[in-house]
């Protein structure tokens, strides 16, 4: 285990060290101390590496992650794990707005709450939130799974494509073209596996599934007057 202390090591040096370690395929473990809400901590890692951040971070932590496992022992600012490709990002606390935005793969595991726009435009990432999520979550989400053990805010899944949304608690309101869908055995299976991977204490049967009604996919001539 190597330690990088951000009270003495500049952010750029921390990120270069982690990026080179990831590239070397070493699969080493790193600990980041004193992040003090810094922006862009542990970004652009491209290879197997285990990183533990001991404290809270600011904007864009763990962005563009590929293969690495990043654990934040605190809360994260806006845009955590943005555009993640693969690997795993675990947040022990809360995540601010647009967590996991545009993510293409991997698992984002948020133990606390996520605020607005969680999973906006997600493209294949799996996101598990153990608490609640804010408004406009999964806006224009295209692919992947968003699992919420708590409640969802307003306009969930607005203008949704083919991402699957599973919510255990209440949904304040559904966005345009997002509807509740039946839970089939294959969905129970997907959810079971995701809950197990995220260490979540919940049963798949307790969740409801939401998805796209697919009414916005094509222009409907009968709606021409509405434009």
């Amino acid at each position: 285990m190597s330690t990088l202390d951000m009270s003495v090591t500049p952010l750029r040096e921390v990120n270069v060290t982690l990026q080179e370690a990831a590239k070397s395929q070493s699969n080493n473990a790193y600990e980041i101390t004193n992040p003090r809400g810094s922006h862009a901590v542990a970004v652009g890692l491209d290879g197997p590496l285990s990183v533990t951040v001991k404290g809270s971070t600011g904007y864009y932590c763990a962005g563009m992650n590929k293969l690495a496992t990043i654990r934040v022992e605190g809360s994260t600012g806006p845009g955590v794990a943005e555009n993640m490709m693969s690997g795993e990002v675990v947040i022990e606390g809360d995540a601010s707005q647009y967590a996991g935005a545009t993510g293409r793969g991997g698992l984002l595991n948020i133990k606390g709450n996520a605020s607005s726009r969680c999973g906006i435009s997600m493209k294949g990432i799996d996101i598990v939130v153990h608490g609640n999520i804010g408004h406009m979550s999964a806006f224009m989400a295209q692919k992947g799974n968003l699992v919420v053990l708590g409640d969802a805010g307003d306009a969930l899944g607005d203008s949704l494509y083919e991402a699957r949304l599973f919510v255990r608690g209440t949904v304040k309101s559904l966005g345009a073209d997002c509807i509740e869908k039946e839970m089939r055995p294959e969905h129970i299976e997907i959810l079971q596996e995701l809950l197990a991977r995220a260490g979540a204490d919940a049963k798949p049967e307790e969740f409801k599934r939401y998805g796209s009604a697919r009414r916005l996919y094509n222009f409907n001539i009968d709606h021409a007057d509405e434009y």
Partner: protein
Amino acid sequence: MCGIVGLFLKQDALRPKLGDMLTDMLITMTDRGPDSAGIAIYGEEAEGSVKITIQSDTPDADFDGLEAALGAAIGGGVTVKPVNTHAVLVLPVEKETDAIAFLESKGLRIMGVGTSMEIYKEVGLPKDVAARFGLREMGGSHGIGHTRMATESAVTTMGAHPFSTADDQCLVHNGSLSNHNQMRRKLAKKGIFTKSENDTEVGAAYISSRIADGATLGEALEGTISDLDGFFTFVTGTKNGFGVVRDPIACKPAVMAETDDYVAFASEYRAFADLPGIEAARVWEPEPATVYFWER
């Protein structure tokens, strides 16, 4: 983009450290707003007196002899404490209107008026603004601060936050209002005039006008959600405390922290990093379109 900070103390023991704590928070927010910085601090009240914070670009000339001249004009009882480009005037509360008329006739800018509030704001980096006013040495019960990245009006002293539009009330804002001209005209019809072209000053004047009409701070803040259009995270200071509200879209960041000793607000968590006991604090993001306030 702008940076906002606020600190409300629950324990009197921390009062002498308020300026020091707020200054660290303000400087941490420099890269969110390097154009100008300002702070409103609620300190000691003097019985039967009111404090007027004024500003001048030529303080040496303007503040020299001001105590005697103002005293003669309003009938005595004035003290003037110059602090760099600002001065805090203490005078009997019944002389407030006369004093303001005199000061404005001399071309002095009124930053704020109140029994406990003082406002210091200038163009420049937060660390330089803090140093020229000695913000670190100031004590008080609560205070709010702002680092500005200008969008809606020029980078000037009068365009810097906080904006005060009524005694002991002030507002800092991250965002931009889109109906401020319309609201400015509406307020003018009620006889409420703003001093700058700035959108935030209109927000402050709106809140002050609602409170003047009998609304509580909570009701006035609630009103911003329906009556003001645009993006905002507002922190408003009053004599007894501070309030927070975000617009329903809530794209302007906000984070809060609470311990047994204080309630803190900031645009970003890193402004909290030096606060005592922050590791054990309850830290959360204020909900959109939800009013929060703390009063003593």
